[in-house]
C-alpha cells in the first residue's frame, strides 16, 4: 500500500477502518485511521460516539506530546481493519476528524514500512 499524501504531510501510513459498537453490526462508520506508534491507545473522533450511540466507560488520563493533561472517557468498539476484526477494543474519543490507531491495535499486525519508496505492508499473522 502507498503512503497517504493527501491527509498527511509528510506522507504517512493510513488505512480504512470500520468502527462498530461492540457486538452490533449496525450502525457503523468507515473512516481513515493513521497508524501511530506514538499513541498508547487508539483514538476515535468524538462525533463518532454520537453517531454510533457509544456508551461511555471509565475516564482515563491522557497526556499529549507537550505533556498537557486531559481526562477522557473510554469506549468499547469493534474495529475492522483490512478485513480483520478486533473485538471490544478500548478506545478514547477526542475532537479530531480521523482515527489514530495506537500501539494497542498495531500490536495485532505485522507492519513493514518502506519510507524511501513510501509504501507499507500491514498483515495479520
Amino acid at each position, binding site marked *: 500500500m502507498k503512503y497517504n499524501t493527501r491527509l498527511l504531510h509528510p506522507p504517512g501510513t493510513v488505512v480504512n477502518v470500520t468502527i462498530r459498537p461492540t457486538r452490533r453490526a449496525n450502525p457503523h462508520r468507515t473512516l481513515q485511521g493513521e497508524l*501511530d506508534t506514538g499513541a498508547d491507545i487508539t483514538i476515535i473522533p468524538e462525533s463518532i460516539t*454520537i453517531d454510533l450511540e457509544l456508551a*461511555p466507560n471509565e475516564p*482515563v488520563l491522557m497526556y499529549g506530546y507537550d505533556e498537557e493533561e486531559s481526562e477522557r472517557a473510554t469506549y468499547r468498539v469493534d474495529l475492522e481493519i483490512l478485513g480483520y476484526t478486533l473485538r471490544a477494543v478500548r478506545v478514547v474519543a477526542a475532537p479530531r476528524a480521523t482515527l489514530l490507531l495506537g500501539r494497542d491495535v498495531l500490536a495485532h499486525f505485522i507492519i513493514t514500512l518502506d519510507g524511501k519508496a513510501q509504501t507499507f505492508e500491514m498483515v495479520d499473522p
Partner: protein
Amino acid sequence: MAKILKESRAVYSVSLDKAEALTKPVVLKRAGRQVAALVPIAEYAQFVSWRKQHRPSRKRATKATWLAKQERIMNREFAAFEQMKPALLQSHKDKWVAIHNGELVDSDADDKLLLERVDSKFGDITMLVTRVTETERVYHVNSPKLVRQ
C-alpha cells in the same frame, strides 16, 4: 386603561419588472423600512436546501441527549467504584470488574470475557467495566501534528 389600536386597511400594489424579479432579489418596504424580500425561485430553492443541511437534526439532538444520560450513569457508577476501590484492591487486585447500579456484578482477569458475560446477562446497557489497580493508568499520545498552511 387599555388602548385599542387599529391598523388602517392598506392595499399594497407592487409593480415589478418581470425580468428583474427573475434575476435578483426585490426588497419590499413599508413606511421606509425593509420588511420582506422577493427572491427568484432558484435562489429560494438554494436557501431551502442550505437551511435543511444546516438545521441541527432532531435525530442527532436526541442522540446527544441519550449520550448525556449515559455519561451521568457512568459518573454515578465510577463514583461507586471509587468508594469500593479500597475493598476491591484487597479482593480483586488487577482484575477487571463490572459495576452496575453501584454494585459489583461480575469480575474476570480477561476484560473481553467479562464483557461478553455481562453483555449476555444484562444486554446492551451502560455499565462500568474497569481494572482494579492501585495506580491510575495514564495514556500518552506523543505525536505532534503539523498543520499545513
